[in-house]
């Protein structure tokens, strides 16, 4: 498990860079990220547009703008935007990755493959691209086998029911990618983040970007959503059950700044409480895996903050649909960390989700509230 110094370090980094123009840019980027996280892609796009046109060399602003386009299903524009990013910032793996995701959605697996292979060339240890590429190779293999095994008379129609692309769209430039920007920013009057905050990937980054530019990317610990499919699956983010913290994927959670910091260490003697909180989470996961919709919803408190600002009803409809999808699924709660504060609790864990055509490991945080003997979910967040 990775340490979670993001709140403190984020504050520190913000304090260090206070007053610099970069802060404004990074705050604006954070705003775009928040909007994306809340599913407000239109507003995110507008904000990113402003940011990017004010600062055309700002890779992150342009990246976020492209993500927003992708979220709005404006694929052609998103592809063009990511494509331009790969040309202007060939050292960044994320734009290649996202290009691949969009190509894969259009079933253009060969282009997707070549984009992912480019992503890996920029960062040989780039785990998301590796995971996506493995997924893509399996898909390409499947296509190749289908072509190999058609009937001789050619009448057999190609199977059109191939599972939808589940490749992970990167929502943000990760630390490995932003590292060159950070390094480049050494020439600008912005404090580098504390060395300790740099993930190892930052040091491994081969060559710093030559383009000295506003360090739009916040220091690594600050923010980003994890790999997430374009198809909004609030419960699961695709990433094979690989080690959950690939160097290149996003750190930190966007909501970190907005929520008051939880007491990190639970008070001694809370063990029994922790156990009940954990068993509530386990029961929630079990109900999900059983595809028992009723039991699943029973774990959500009346005060549950529906993600994306939608109505509870719309959210329930969507969840019900997802849960009722045929096929066996499993949901595992891995390495949970529980923090309890009176009647409130927060459980952070690696959620391992598996279905017939989709595997995903996602860092998830559930906030819970005590209602009598029960612990009920008030907020469900994806990310670190």
């Amino acid at each position: 498990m990775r340490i979670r110094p993001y709140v403190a370090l984020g504050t520190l980094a913000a304090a260090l860079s206070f007053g610099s123009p970069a802060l404004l840019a990074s705050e604006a980027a954070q705003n775009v990220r928040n909007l994306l996280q809340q599913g407000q892609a239109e507003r995110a796009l507008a904000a990113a547009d402003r940011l990017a046109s004010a600062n055309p060399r700002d890779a992150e602003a342009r990246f976020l703008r492209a993500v927003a386009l992708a979220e709005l299903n404006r694929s052609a524009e998103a592809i063009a935007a990511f494509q331009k990013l790969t040309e202007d910032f060939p050292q960044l793996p994320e734009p290649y990755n996202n290009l691949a995701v969009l190509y894969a959605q259009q079933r253009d697996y060969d282009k997707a493959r070549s984009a992912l292979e480019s992503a890996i060339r920029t960062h040989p240890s780039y785990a998301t691209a590796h995971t996506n590429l493995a997924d893509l190779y399996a898909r390409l293999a499947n296509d190749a086998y289908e072509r190999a095994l058609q009937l001789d008379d050619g009448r057999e129609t190609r199977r059109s029911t191939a599972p939808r692309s589940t490749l992970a769209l990167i929502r943000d430039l990760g630390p490995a990618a932003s590292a060159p920007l950070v390094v480049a920013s050494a020439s600008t009057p912005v404090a580098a983040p504390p060395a300790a905050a740099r993930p190892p990937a930052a040091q491994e980054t081969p060559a710093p970007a030559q383009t000295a530019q506003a360090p739009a990317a916040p220091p690594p610990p600050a923010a980003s959503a994890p790999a997430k499919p374009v198809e909004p699956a609030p419960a699961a983010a695709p990433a094979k059950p690989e080690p959950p913290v690939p160097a290149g994927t996003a750190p930190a959670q966007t909501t970190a700044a907005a929520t008051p910091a939880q007491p990190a260490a639970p008070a001694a003697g809370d063990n029994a409480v922790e156990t009940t909180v954990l068993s509530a989470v386990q029961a929630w996961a079990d109900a999900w895996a059983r595809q028992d919709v009723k039991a699943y919803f029973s774990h959500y408190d009346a005060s549950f903050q529906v993600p994306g600002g939608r109505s509870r009803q719309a959210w329930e409809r969507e969840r019900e649909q997802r849960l009722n999808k045929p096929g066996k699924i499993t949901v595992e709660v891995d390495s949970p960390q529980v923090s309890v504060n009176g009647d409130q609790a927060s459980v952070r864990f690696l959620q391992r989700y598996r279905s017939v055509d989709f595997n995903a490991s996602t860092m998830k945080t559930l906030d819970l509230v005590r209602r009598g003997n029960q612990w009920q979910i008030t907020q469900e967040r994806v990310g670190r």
Partner: protein
Amino acid sequence: MKPSLFSRIRPRAALLAGTLALAAAQLAAAPEDRRISDAGPEAALRQVFAEIEANRLDAALDRTEALLQAYPTFRLGHLIRGDLLLARTRPLSTFGEVSEHADRVQALREEAVARLRAYRERPGMADYVPRYLLQMRADQEYAVVVDTERARLYVYRNENGKPRFVADFYSTHGKAGSAKQYEGDNKTPLGVYHVTSRIEAAKLPDLYGSGAFPLNYPNTWDRRLGRTGYGIWLHGTPSDNYARTPRSTEGCVALSNQDLITLANYVQPGLTPVIISNEIEWLSLDDWQAERSALNEAIETWRTDWESADAQRYLAHYSRDFRSDRQQDYETWAAQKSRVLSANARIRVGMQNISMFRMPGEKEMIDITFDQEYSSDGYSDRMRKRQYWIKEDGRWKIIYEGRA
């Protein structure tokens, strides 16, 4: 830091390679100049398998993709590509790592083996000839010889009576194998046939691809043995399929469309022999020459014995199992010939344009055709004649004779 995906997968390629070791190991040693004249995918396939054998899967995939650029509907190529891609995500246990359609996967494996084997075991084309091509008449420019066992079709050019290798192609035959007997048995006939006509692709369903050359099955010998069926053709493949698996027709011999088009350059309808064998017997040129001389000698003796008008000498060339094209048996034939021979003086027999083909699927039998000029005091005629000669007790004898 987790190990890179590729380094984790590479060692497992050994499994895939192992499956193909048989095919690939000896291939790797084959000299590059073994390629003679066909432009088919065998050479590239061989290289792909050599790369797999050497555990260079990336190179193998590159080559496979280049191969598929040239032959986009080459299903075996797609199967190999599928394996090479899948090998990047998990270990493979077999060649053609697909759980469904086991029969089709197996058929593609057989295609791979057939292609590689034909490539590897290509006989020394300058030193060996198919035993069947004993003699071609001057206007038969080419002969086609099919080996169903190897799924291979060979083309020979007639160079002053001597067959010279021109090209060979992968070919497909009947799903139930060879030695056709009955209509609908899905087998490819074995024997000496010829192309009767050419049908253009435009007049055919897509199934037949770039055209068709009907054969004269059932031939005289087939009919004598009571074999039935019809419509045995050489033809192409559907547009979405570069090649069909080795055993997949209803008895026809199918080639890739581009190979059929190449073959069309060699085929003369009505003339070109198509000899279909189960497994070609190859003869050294010396043995071939000896066999051919012995037969020519036997035929010449028959001719001079006929001219001698000595019924006993003449009839000694005929088997007791003889049948004529009018279904006369030996006794009837012998009685009639004896009468004719004694009534005619100064018999002269001329023979031209002699073709001699050993008949596959039969033990020691030759299909001989020639233009015969007969004359005697009161009568003369010209005809094209067919005889089947069979070896009985070490002597060549005629078991059938009639108009060709």
